[in-house]
Every structure is written in C-alpha cells, then in structure tokens.
C-alpha cells in the first residue's frame, strides 16, 4: 500500500460484500422459494440473479427469498422492488430472463414488460 488511492481500491472491492449487512434502501429482489417455486426451478433463477449482481458489482441490491405467493402455476415468481417505485412481479422466470431483468430493469430502470404478471 503506497497511497490513499490503493486503500480506496481495496475498500471498493470489499464494499459489495459487506453492504448486505447494513440497513439500506436499495433495490430488493424477492424470489419465491417455497416447494412449488423450487420445483419449478427457482433456485437456478436466484443463482443467476446473484451471479449477475456480483458480476456487475451492484452494491445496493439484495436478493432475498420468500415463501409461496399463492400462484403456484406461475412459478418461479420474482418480485423487484426499487425504492420509490411500484413493485413489479415477474413470472415463469428462467436464468436467462433473470439476467435480462438485471440489465434492463435493475440497472437501467426499464421494466421488462413481456415477463410481468400482466402478460402471463
């Protein structure tokens, strides 16, 4: 370590990791992980979200699971909550769809309408 810039670089690298333990108002991605969700393939969907977020170093996004939402035939179901915006519910998700949701909705704020519950 030779300078403050070196220190800041290490801090940035660790930031995404530790942020999860702080109370923050960032984006929440909620994946339905009850038996129905898991049977429909919710785990790879969640893993895809986690990987994509890690790859893009998004420090203000958390991925949490929830139980059965009550629409088992539409699983895997994912809800995205961005601060100050309405909740968006995506249905029949796949890992590919998850990656697209991250790049279009989470990063750029454009809802991927074709995956949402209104279009199911």
């Amino acid at each position, binding site marked *: 370590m030779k300078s403050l810039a070196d220190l800041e670089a*290490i801090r940035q690298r660790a930031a995404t990791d530790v942020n999860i333990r702080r*109370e923050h108002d960032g984006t929440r991605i909620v994946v339905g*992980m009850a038996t129905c969700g898991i049977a429909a393939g919710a785990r790879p969907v969640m893993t895809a979200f986690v990987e994509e977020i890690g790859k893009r170093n998004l420090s203000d996004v958390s991925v949490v699971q929830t139980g059965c939402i009550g629409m088992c035939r539409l699983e895997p179901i994912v809800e995205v909550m961005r601060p100050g915006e309405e909740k968006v519910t995506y249905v029949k998700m796949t890992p590919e769809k998850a990656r697209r949701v991250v790049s279009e909705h989470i990063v750029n704020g454009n809802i991927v309408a074709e995956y949402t519950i209104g279009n199911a």
Partner: protein
Amino acid sequence: MYRGHVLCCGGTGCTSSGSEAIINEMEAQLKANGLENEIKVIKTGCFGLCALGPIMVVYPEGAFYSRVKVEDVKEIVEEHLLKGRIVTRLLYQETVEDDGIKSLNEVDFYKKQHRVALRNCGVIDPENIDEYIEADGYKALGKVLTEMTREEVIDEVTKSGLRGRGGGGFPTGLKWKFAYNAKGDKKFVACNADEGDPGAFMDRSILEGDPHSVIEAMAIAAYAVGADQGYIYIRAEYPIAVKRLEIAIGQARAYGLLGKNIFGTDFSFDLELRLGAGAFVCGEETALMTSIEGKRGEPRPRPPFPANQGLWAKPTLLNNVETYANITQIINNGAEWFSSIGTEKSKGTKVFALGGKINNTGLVEIPMGTTLREIIEEIGGGIPDGKKFKAAQTGGPSGGCIPAALMDTPIDYDSLIQIGSMMGSGGLIVMDEDNCMVDIAKFFLEFTVDESCGKCAPCRIGTKRLLEILTKITDGKGTMEDIDRLEELAYTIKNSSLCGLGQTAPNPVLSTLRYFRDEYIAHVKDKTCPAGVCKALSRYVINREKCKGCSLCSRQCPVGAISGKIKEPFVIDSDKCIKCGACMEACKFGAIYKK
C-alpha cells in the same frame, strides 16, 4: 458475490457456549444443501448480548437467532436459507413482531446504546482486513500521515475531550502532548490490554471483534508522539484475542500498513505483542512496562512518569485498548462530533461489561451521562426473578458500590468519584437483595490480598489485616471497635501505598461502610447477616406447622444434625449443623428456612 451472510459470534462468551460447533455444523449443512457458494459464514466478535449466546445473525434479513443449538442449524439452513422462511421460533423474541422482525436497533437492549468503540464488533470479520478497510478502516491513518501535522493530530485528540478508559480518566490529548514534548532519540507507544478486573471483558471484546481499530490507532499515536515501535501488553488468558491480533498484525504488515514508509511517507512503525501472565498489578502502568522489559512486574514510584521515562527509560505513551478504539473515529468524524456525545467533562461513550444479578449480562456501550437506572432497568432488562436491586459495583476491586438511592446518578468520571465510586475500566456488577455487602467487600479484599505484589508494606500487610477484620465480622465475632479500626486502616493504606493497587484497594470497604453501615452493624451487634449469606451467622430452622415429619431432611443431613419422630415435627441442632443447605433443598413441603 454471496446473497446471504451468516454471522456467528466467535467471542469468548459464545465460544464457551459452543459457537465453534455451530459454525462447523452450519458449514456442513450449507454444503449438504449446495448453498456454500451463495451463503457466506463469518465468525465475528461479540454482539454484546452474551446472556443469549450463542448468537447468529442472518443477512440481508437481519434475523437475530439466539441461544442457537447445533440441532437448530439444520432447520435454519433448510427453512430460512433455502426457502426464505425465517425460523421465528428460534429468534430473539424481542425482535419478533406480528408482521415480521424488527431491526436490532429498536430492541431495548440496543436502543439506548451508542456504539463507537464497539462499532465493528459483531459486524465485520475480525480476521479479514478487507472488511475492516471497507468500514473506513485505515482511512484515519492515511489522513493523518498525508494531510495532518503531528501537532494537528494531538490538537484534535485534545479538543475531542477523550479521557483514558483504563480507569484513571486522564485526558488523552494531554498525555500525547507530554510524550510528544519528551526529549529522546527513541520513543515507544504501548497498549494496556491486561484487563485484570474480575468480571470485566470490554477490552477483550474489542480486540476479538475489531483488532485493527487498535492497531491503526497505535500507528496514529506513534506518528503523533514520534515513536516507531509499539507493544501491546495482553494477558495470555485471552487466547482468542491474541490469535486475532496476530492475524491482524500479519495482514497489516502484508498490506504495508505496518512497517517501513507507510502510505509512501517517511513514517515507519511496527508492533509486537507481549503476553502477560495474568497478575492484576501488571495492569498498573509502571509494573506493565517493567514486565514488558522482561523483568518481574512490580510498580515503581512516579514521577518520573512513563511519558518521560517508560520502556527502557525512553519516553513511552501508554493507553488502554478502549481509549485507542476511539481514536480513528475522532480523526474521521472530527473532535467536534466526538465531544457532542456525553457530558460536559466526560465526552464520548463508555463500554461496560454487565454482570451479576441482571437479565441481559453482556457488553454495552452507552453515551456518558446515561444513568445507572437506564443501564440496569432498560438496557440490562432488570433483575432476574423479580428481586430488588440493592447496589452496583463499578471500578472492580478499586471501585465502590452505588446504592439504589443513587441510581439516577449520571455515569461520568466526576459524578462517580463524588459518590465514592469510580468509572474504572468498565466492570459493572449488579447486586440484589440476596447479596451481603460485607461479603462483597470481603470478596474484593480477598482478590487484592492475592494480587498485592508485596513490594510495599501498607498494601502487603495492610490489606491482609483489613481482610482479617472483615472475616472476623462475617464470622460473627466482630466488635464495634473493629468497624472503626477498619475505617482507620483503610485510610492509612490509601495514603501510604506505593501504587494504585494499594491506594484503591480499601475502596470497596469504604464505600460499603458509607452506604451499608447498617449491614456491618447487624453482623456485629445482632449477629445476623440480613441477606442470609454469611454462613456463620445464618441458621436453618424447621417450621413446626409445615413439617410433616417425613424424615427426608434428616436422611439428607451429612452430619446427623436433624432428629425427630416420624409424623412429628423434626428439629435441627444448630451446634452440629454445618449450614450446607441440603435439608432445605430436600424438603418437599417448604418447611425449612434460613434465618
């Protein structure tokens, strides 16, 4: 990237209630469920709520599991971590609400706390320097070395109003200035991590939970006073703290945060540990330095003060662990921020180890000026079993007790001294109606008699005589003259001992005499112990109305002191009775009581 973090307490308290096995089981269960790349397990330092350990906190939800058992881990993994269903049954029930869980900061135990010295304890992984850096670690050192002069650093610490947390309460900035002004080709900084007060574990928890905060502060202090070598004197009985310090020092060296030309400047600094063998007197500054030099840890008269003649007769700055833990925060947030916390003459916060008759035993950090009542009734959750609060002891064997009538005294250096106690290093032992205050004074005197190094006569002989008089009183053989003699001797020892150990050793006697003289008199005049603690003065008696004459007690009695006819009331022969209490425990009718 991990989507979830499982934080398990690896402090001494939780470790001794089995957190290591829980961490192993957690790792095994995560593997079994294929979650090991999604969920990270982190062993942290103390969360503070030791009474509820082992503690486990799961993020991002912030679910606070308490008293976790190895058998519970499978359920937490399969329900919570796999399916996202928090296992409410295992949560700390104070955090459970109808529609979910509430944040820890809103729980009674944490609500009134203000964590400055403990800010990273239970939050970061103490064995990973990156997590410390993420929490703005080493930023203060960087700032000091690249932007501030030595004088500016000392000025900032002075303006903050920080006073020594090791017990004395000496203004830290002033101490730094003395060391800065001292002439010498070589200077040292040292850290007092001896923590010898019975029941105290503040410093241990800081070192276990956030070792880098002390290392960074020592480097800052070294820059300010002009030292290039530091020593941390820590007792060998703190193996977890020692291990984490060693890891932390290694990591800091690897990053160049210790060693030559730190942050590309011409400031160089390195640190070594020195392990103490656990003598109380080695916490006293001159004894501590003698011990670091490899000699027998005995105190010497001051002056010369360590700032002028310390280690190897060179100028040396010595501060306590918690004192250091505040430094980086003062540099990062400014002296003004720090001095906005606390009271007029006691700035900032103080960490206390809450112990004794209190529901939430553990570690708390409160702003100076918080009252004892707030600590005990709100943060501490009150006294167990609905018993009545009698007194609290602060300052350990050097301190004194605070009776119930003074519970609204604000906790700060000066108020505590005024009422005959002292801040001390942060041990806070709570006593209820079942504690005998003469017995408490005796307990602390036994400790100081054991720990007196023997170098000066007032302490070596005087404390022994004090203890003899106290024992005489608790044996029911005391006279009123003994009470006077106790007081006179106490003042003599205070005034003539060589070091702080002897000068403060009589304090527990003096303060219990001040507030609980009636208990002393009861022992002497009425030959009774009001709390029923002192064995020689208590008697076991059988209530004739309640006794059914079953003979169970007489069969339990190891000395054959109980006799009687079946179906008629039994009697205890007080002369034979050894007051073991076995009869009272055995009686099914509650017919035996202690008088």
